[in-house]
């Protein structure tokens, strides 16, 4: 496995150095270091249990790290927790608001909690409700809203006070395409207004589409970090082939040894993930399978993209 750490500009909004956290024998976060600059949309991509949420909860000050430091806007989170909370915004996975209250009452409450004035709040509420297409329904209790509408309100609550650092924990889980587009647009707009966004997801397309830079995490470690283009360079020009059939790992190894220029990503009985130049190597490979008397049930090819990068780095597919 190769690590790619990229140099970025000085004075980052978020700086994490050698962050580690364990729960009993489980190493949830293992020596994570990264920097996120102001206005950047930074994505943590990884499967469940990769350590994304633990990392984000340490950034939010909800968990104390075992070791390492976190600096937000040049302030150490241990020394200035109160000041840091004043510049943070958070959008959790849960619909964290009050369903009995109206959209307007909810936004007003959360804004006031952040110390916003009534006048400023009124303007922002009108602006955002218009932006997410809920103008005219602001006086309805949220329990009457659809799931997508609630997701949008959940996001606006995190944005209403214009936080300098916005933490989003899988904010688009289980929503329709239109709402997803709406939410991603709002995040981009916040980024344009210098809000730094740290975003966790296990949706590859979303990460590709939204994030300026992405950290691929698994088992508490950052496996790679960079822009989409930089990450794709990890797999180079090669395609990824996933082959399933009735063969043992030994047989597969024997077949692959007959062809050069194929890298094994993952292999077990009945399954192999390999990196290769598909147009040149697949016909020969299939012939070898045939000659060995091994049947292949399924073969799928992936062009170099974030998914193939993830597959190459972790040896497994990332599914929603």
């Amino acid at each position, binding site marked *: 496995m190769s690590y790619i750490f990229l140099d970025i500009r000085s004075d980052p909004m978020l700086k994490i150095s050698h962050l580690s956290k364990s729960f009993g024998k489980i190493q949830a976060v293992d020596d994570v270091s990264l920097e996120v600059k102001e206005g950047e949309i930074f994505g943590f991509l990884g499967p469940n249990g990769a350590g994304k*949420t633990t990392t984000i909860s340490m950034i939010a000050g909800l968990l104390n790290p075992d070791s390492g430091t976190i600096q937000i806007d040049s302030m150490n989170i241990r020394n200035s927790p109160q000041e840091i909370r004043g510049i943070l915004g958070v959008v959790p996975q*849960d619909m964290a608001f*009050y369903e009995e209250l109206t959209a307007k009452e909810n936004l007003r409450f*959360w804004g006031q*909690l*952040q110390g916003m004035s009534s006048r400023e709040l009124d303007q922002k509420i009108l602006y955002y409700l218009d932006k997410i297409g809920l103008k005219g329904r602001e006086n309805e209790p949220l329990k009457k809203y659809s799931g997508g509408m609630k997701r949008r309100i959940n996001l606006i*609550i995190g944005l209403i006070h214009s936080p300098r650092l916005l933490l989003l924990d899988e904010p688009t889980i289980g929503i329709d395409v239109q709402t997803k587009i709406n939410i991603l647009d709002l995040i981009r707009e916040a980024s344009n207004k210098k809000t730094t966004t740290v975003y966790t997801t296990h949706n590859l397309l979303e990460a590709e589409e939204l994030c300026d830079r992405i950290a691929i995490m698994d088992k508490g470690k950052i496996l790679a970090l960079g822009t989409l283009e930089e990450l794709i360079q990890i797999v180079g020009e090669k395609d990824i082939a996933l082959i399933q059939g009735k063969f043992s790992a030994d047989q597969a190894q024997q077949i692959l040894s007959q062809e050069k220029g194929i890298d094994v990503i993952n292999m077990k009985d009945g399954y192999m993930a390999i990196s290769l130049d598909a147009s040149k190597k697949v016909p020969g490979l299939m012939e070898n399978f045939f000659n060995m008397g091994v049947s292949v049930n399924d073969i799928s090819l992936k062009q170099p993209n974030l998914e193939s990068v993830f597959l190459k780095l972790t040896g497994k597919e990332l599914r929603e």
Partner: protein
Amino acid sequence: MKRILLLIGKDFKRKWKNPVVILGFLLIPLLFTFLFGFIFGSSQEDVLLTVKVFSVDLDDSLVSRLYLSSLTQGELKDMIQIQAVSSEGEARSLLDKGKASALIVIPSEFGEKVWGGESAEITLIKNPSEQFLPQIAEEITKTTSLVFSAILQIFSEEIDRIKELSEQKDVSNQTISDLSIMVKNRMEGIEKYVFPPVISIKQVTQEKDVEVEEVGYPIHSYILPAISIMFILFICNIVFEDMLREKEKGTLLRMTISPLQISEFIWSKILTSALIGILCTLFLVGLGTVLFSIDWGRPGILLIIILTLNILIAGLIAFLYTFIQTERQAGALMSSVIVVMALLGGSMIPISNFPPFVQKISRFTVNYWGLEAFKKNILRDPVSQIWMIVLGMLVMGLLLSVASSFLLKKKLKKGLYR
């Protein structure tokens, strides 16, 4: 403080928009008070309960009519009301519909048997859906039958003579005169044993300023505060259940990543609980005054009792929540704790009915101290006695609140981010 007020305002708004549970908890004490007052009567009123009884007289003789009229003689007429019904079937049907507490059926030949000195039977059918009133009807019927039998036995000679005369065609004036003298002599003979009656029913209205032990004061004045304390505990419990719900739902998480301190959140819940408790108690006190004419005693002291009692309740519930992890646990555990406290503390049964060792345990319940304070104010006991209780409730409430704010802080932080 500004943020705590903001949180309290938010919680009040939420409760205002979803008031069903609280209103339900407020109605129950009023309903209980009404029902208990209705069943046992209010000692503020001079009226005893009237028992309605149907009668079916299949005999329709002089004796049966005499018997039925004897049931409503003298002071009994205030206690029992007899309504004649033509047939037993109709009477039973009406009884099933709850139109009366009992039914008396006098069989045919009742009069003949009584005249003949034979034993005669009267049937009393009690309404099974009522508990106390049919018992009263039974006791009155038994007593009247006993007295009626005694009279028949005492005047047996005279009755025999009347029977003989009734069979003769011509009765002389001298014979009637002799019979009258005979009855008069018999009456004079038994008068000294019968009059004045040894036992009579007397109704007394309790003077307000007289000290009375335990439930000696008007029943509404005991029932309403007793049941109210129990349901105020349930109402305050809702606020703290909501605290766990906020943790489950993620709103608490969101708050902790704002400038809000988690201790501010806990204090907002304690204060919301106390304030809602105070408002609900005032509501019940107000309605108690209007609906049941309860005299709560000195208003200033009453307000202080309500204030300190609710501080104690809020502190106690907050403290109990330091032992609870989830909303489900809260639902099961808190209901049991509140009911047991109500039982031991006198909210369900006056503690004077308990054995001494249970009465000592009662002192560890908020219900006991709340009831003591209300009772002493209603009876206008010396203020010094009430101050001690009020001060105790205040100090205990504040201590429990402070302890809870520390203990809950750690508990709420744990597992906040899943």
